């Protein structure tokens, strides 16, 4: 008779460990600590960060990094991370009054948090429209009413191709973006990412991309939109298209969009 403890130990010892460095955990810990410090900052700093967020999101959501109300730099056709970072730096040159007006342009009666989340989700939708079908006729164009959020995560479900669904979630962990393989994923590579997972099932394609900056973007395209009871015959999308879209650095996790003045470039 073999003791359960001993057998469990042998079972555990046979588990293959992921290739990871303690410095990766250090980075995540530092990021979490920065986010916590941001949450407890004084009212003035918090307000500045919130205003900074809306400016970044407004510029990022139009597909032209750097464009936005009051911004003098002009649009740019480049979508790489460098231009994205430059747009953030430039956006901070807006006056406080201009930034506050941009934020308050949101619907009256809603909270600032709702306005900002709505802005972020609109930005995600704009990026996905550009990456998946620039003609813009397949992705939902109307107001985004579905909003799903969790710790460091924000997402939504959009109508796709007249009845289907395109779900996006951007966060910092697979748990956060609610992406579960249950043993069915394959691993693929995509530019701009350290890892990419693909789950193919009848009528749906799901991908989770681990972007170089640590964000994780999960996209699911499904021929049916369960909540709405609608469906479409075809997705008109490939796995590669979804992977490339999910690797777009403009899809930033919510806490990445918030930066205290002077923190650009620090870790």
């Amino acid at each position: 008779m073999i003791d359960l403890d001993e057998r469990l130990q042998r079972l555990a010892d046979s588990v293959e460990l992921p290739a990871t460095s303690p410095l990766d955990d250090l980075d995540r810990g530092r990021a979490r600590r920065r986010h916590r410090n941001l949450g407890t900052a004084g009212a003035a700093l918090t307000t500045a960060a919130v205003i900074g967020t809306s400016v970044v999101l407004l510029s990022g959501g139009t597909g032209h990094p750097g464009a936005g109300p009051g911004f003098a730099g002009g649009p740019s056709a480049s979508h790489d991370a460098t231009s994205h970072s430059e747009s953030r730096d430039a956006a901070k040159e807006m006056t406080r009054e201009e930034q506050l007006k941009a934020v308050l342009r949101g619907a009256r009666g809603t909270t600032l948090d709702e306005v900002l989340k709505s802005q972020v989700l609109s930005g995600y939708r704009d990026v996905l429209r550009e990456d998946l079908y620039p003609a813009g006729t397949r992705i939902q164009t109307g107001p985004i009413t579905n909003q799903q959020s969790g710790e460091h995560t924000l997402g939504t479900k959009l109508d796709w191709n007249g009845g289907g669904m395109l779900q996006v979630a951007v966060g910092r962990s697979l748990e956060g973006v609610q992406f579960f393989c249950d043993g069915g994923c394959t691993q693929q590579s995509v530019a701009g990412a350290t890892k990419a997972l693909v789950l193919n099932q009848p009528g749906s394609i799901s991908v989770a991309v681990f972007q170089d900056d640590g964000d994780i973007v999960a996209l699911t395209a499904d021929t049916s939109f369960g909540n709405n009871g609608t469906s479409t015959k075809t997705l008109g999308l490939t796995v590669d298209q979804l992977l490339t879209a999910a690797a777009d650095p403009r899809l930033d996790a919510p806490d990445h969009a918030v930066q205290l003045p002077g923190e650009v470039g620090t870790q």
Partner: protein
Amino acid sequence: MFNSFRNEERDHPFVEYVAARRAKLYRTAYLICGDAHRADDLVQIALAKAYVAWPRLEQAGNVDAYVRRILVNAHVDETRRSWRRERPGLDEVDEAAPAPSHEGNEDLWTALRALAPGQRRIVVLRHYWGLSIEETAADLGISPGTVKSQTSDALAHLRRALTEAGTGAHHDRSR
């Protein structure tokens, strides 16, 4: 390797802890949830939270207990989260993950996966970590009585499953 720390008092001991204990934490998570990616997520969450609380943990001398508790409770949260039920196009049946490659462990792996998540957590804490009933109860935030009864049920399930599988594993332990 560790030349770039900006906060020596926190960063260096944290990295040393991770280097020493991450393997066991990952194996714990893997035994509990059965999925490599989810296991890594659980460990990442636990260690990130530990980093934030590091000075307090180190002073109290209970880093392992803290990290372990966050890990198992993150799994509890995961199994309860409502958004998980909104997964589009995914089968709600929890398919068994492939057993780790080790001769003779397939039956135990299958039997472990067949346990309810709560019983599986208790089995891993008691029989992989070697925790007492009281320590297990403290980790999970449940009563020692519940730990005792769940342990008994879980072991009965395991014995039955392993006997049926022909391996006849036996465990008799009282703590």
